[in-house]
């Protein structure tokens, strides 16, 4: 599969742990914010006003800059019915689009499968970080995981070139598919072959990259920089996935939440600045989500697991603004003390899959869901 500079790509940024929606996009006129948050709230004067109703929390300045340019869509009240309030299950549901049973196929993995059904490019989807989020996993579909772009390759310890090429030949033979080896060994062999091919291709990216943009020092900024390098090298990667953690602010929220969002906001603006420096911003869409929002009433030092949250869609081609409705904060409208989701996350996925990637969303998200017009 060849890539062209016109192929749309997505960058998924997962806010792991459950971001506190009520304390991120804040309905600043609502007395219920102050009432429910005796301890866990930002001073009203520090909020970044977006419109008459809503503000961003104080460290989202860089994102507000993009918002003012019309490049940020905020999706309100996102989630799914009957949130289990477990990180594990919630993340699984977001990854597999299966709220009622345990799914084994991830939505981003299914996109990969549709984009590259013949597995011609082992780099169609890449996770930047250790391990693989389930969103990217579909049995038999190759996905690369790059913890650090600068050190990536097979049997890199063998320095003698002739010896290494013989060893890599043997490796390729040992890992080529075999009949009757069993599912796990098949998987190991497939992964080994993908690793061998991917490593060979990806080593070009850092060699080709140069930029004047300085990324801030944070784990998420390093991953976004790696993503920029691979994207700018035109290796045909269409799905980039990474995450930042941990938004699980049961305690110490007022210390940690501002830092997390500062790192995310600054990382994102550096990333888009980098793309723009290379004139390559228009085909990249970034999607931010978290597995759930947090409880409306704080617990004294943080907030517990909740339900509805917010997602963000960022990019040059995005029709910026507020989408959907902020769920009611009134006590009688809450479910077990939580904001009730009023928009199914699979609708947001569908909008991206169909209106950005140009694929049929139904088999990817397991059904038809209301889309939003942020593209």
């Amino acid at each position, binding site marked *: 599969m060849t890539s062209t500079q016109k192929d749309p790509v997505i960058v998924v940024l997962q806010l792991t742990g459950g971001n506190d929606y009520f304390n991120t996009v804040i309905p600043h006129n609502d007395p219920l914010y102050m009432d429910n948050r005796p301890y866990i709230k930002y001073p009203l004067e520090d909020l970044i006003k977006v419109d008459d109703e809503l503000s961003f929390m104080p460290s989202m300045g860089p994102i507000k800059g993009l918002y003012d340019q019309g490049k940020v869509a905020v999706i309100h009240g996102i989630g799914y019915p009957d949130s289990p309030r477990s990180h594990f299950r919630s993340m699984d549901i977001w990854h597999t689009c299966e709220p009622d049973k345990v799914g084994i196929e991830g939505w981003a993995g299914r996109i990969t499968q549709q984009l590259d059904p013949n597995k011609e490019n082992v780099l169609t989807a890449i996770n930047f970080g250790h*391990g693989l989020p389930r969103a990217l996993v579909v049995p038999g579909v190759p996905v690369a995981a790059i913890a650090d772009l600068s050190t990536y390759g097979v*049997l890199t310890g063998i320095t003698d070139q002739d010896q290494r090429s013989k060893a890599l030949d043997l490796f390729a033979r040992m890992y080529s598919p075999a009949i009757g080896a069993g599912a796990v060994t098949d998987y190991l062999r497939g992964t080994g072959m993908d690793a061998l091919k991917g490593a060979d291709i990806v080593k070009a990216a850092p060699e080709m990259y140069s930029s004047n943009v300085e990324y801030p020092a944070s784990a998420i900024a390093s991953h976004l920089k790696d993503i920029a390098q691979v994207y700018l090298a035109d290796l045909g990667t269409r799905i980039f996935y990474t995450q930042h953690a941990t938004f699980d602010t049961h305690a110490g929220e007022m210390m940690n939440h501002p830092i997390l969002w500062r790192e995310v906001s600054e990382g994102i603006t550096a990333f888009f600045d980098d793309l723009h420096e290379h004139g390559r911003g228009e085909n990249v869409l970034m999607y931010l989500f978290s597995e759930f929002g947090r409880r409306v009433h704080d617990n004294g030092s943080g907030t517990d697991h909740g339900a509805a949250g917010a997602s963000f869609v960022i990019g040059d081609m995005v029709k910026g603004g507020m989408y959907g409705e902020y769920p009611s904060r009134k006590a009688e409208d809450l479910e077990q003390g939580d904001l009730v989701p009023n928009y199914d996350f699979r609708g947001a996925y569908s909008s991206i899959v169909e209106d950005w990637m140009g694929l049929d969303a139904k088999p990817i998200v397991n059904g038809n869901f209301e889309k939003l017009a942020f593209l």
Partner: protein
Amino acid sequence: MSHKDDLAQMAHLMRRAGFGATRGELERRVAVGYEATVEELLNPPKEDSGGPAGTFAMLTRYHPNTLLPGGVPTLGQSSWMYHMINSPNPLVEKVALFWHHVFATGNSKVDNCDQLLEQVEMFREFGMGNYRTMLVELSKNPAMIYWLDNNENHRDAVNENWGRELLELFSMGVSNYTEVDVREASRAFTGWTIAPKVPRLPYGRFPWRFDYREEDHDDTEKTFLGHSGNFNGEDIIDIIVKEPATIRFICRHLYNFFVADEVQVPAWTIEPARDEEALDVMVNTLEESNYDIKTLLRVVFNSDFFKNATYAKIKSPAEVVAGTLRLVEDWNTPRPGIKDIGLQPGYMGQSILDPPSVEGWYTGAEWINSGSLLARINFVADRVADTSLSGVKKIIADMKADGVSTPDELVQASLEHMGFLELSPETKKQLLEHAKGGGNLDWNDEAASGTRIGEVLALVGATTEYQFG
């Protein structure tokens, strides 16, 4: 059984009940016998042996900061990896790793490796004891209390984090209780906190200890899983351990860790166990032994379902790193650069003492992706091909003494030294073809022979078979 079969079976036991063994150790253990070895592993000497020739004392002397690494996770990770590599009681470390998988507590939030290492010490001490006692110890463990916010669980402001995970992840499994049960369990644990509550800045770190504050405990009536009373935390644990779901859940975890890879935990409410019969044996054993983990492990290690479960488990990254370093006898004394052994499992997707969340790690085939597989293969290959390491030197000396010469003998001996690995016939054939390219070993040039052996060992380490534990 032939002597080689005995050695292969012992290699299997040592991979599961420890972190693998050199051929020399396997020979010694086979001479003692399988069942006797199981007993030895289950009954480590009471006093802390300090490791061979004061290995652990040396760690503290040369790297004092690994004793109380504070908020520096790598030092804490290095300290534990050093113990996995060097402990004369490998099952103690293995069991501690098991509980760390289940009771996953992470430095990302605790920001206190002193307390995390103390938790590991608690796993060492109570890990093979009574499961009820373990849950009580866990409930009082300062790192856990902080990790799941029980220090923020107050009589008039209940925090459900600990109460929920105790039920969902540490005992019963999801869907065996209601939201009300979560609430009631959490109420029973109000007042279970840590002391001293001194902010780290600007005062520095104070060791935490468990502190029960009666005045902050909600002593009113609770109704939990159909039982009512003025329950405190231990009462909740007493009710939990008697639930059939609990024993099954813990046995399935033990099966997944010691016997064969299961589907991932969230699927356990839906998918039947990989071996229902084996699980029933384990459930009955744990019940009859009054939750004694050691009795259960004895039954498991001596069972046919365990002995037959070869190549049924993908090694965790900690097992890859500790097992390989034990084999090559690297890091059996401290030296500069010790952080590397703490970082390596993380490169393969398992930052010990820092799991991605309280759910721990996805295991089995989920350990493997193109990035982690590369990290595993490269790590092993680099170590076993390093002829300056004493374990590799011993392998070379053994091969010389055994008169290993032809490519066939070289491949066979390499497989035996790497844990009596059994390769698929096709892979073995290809490896042999490759080895034939170099001809017979020439023992007149010992350096060249050593390099050849190292290369074949590296390629054995790069096989799919070596990825299994």
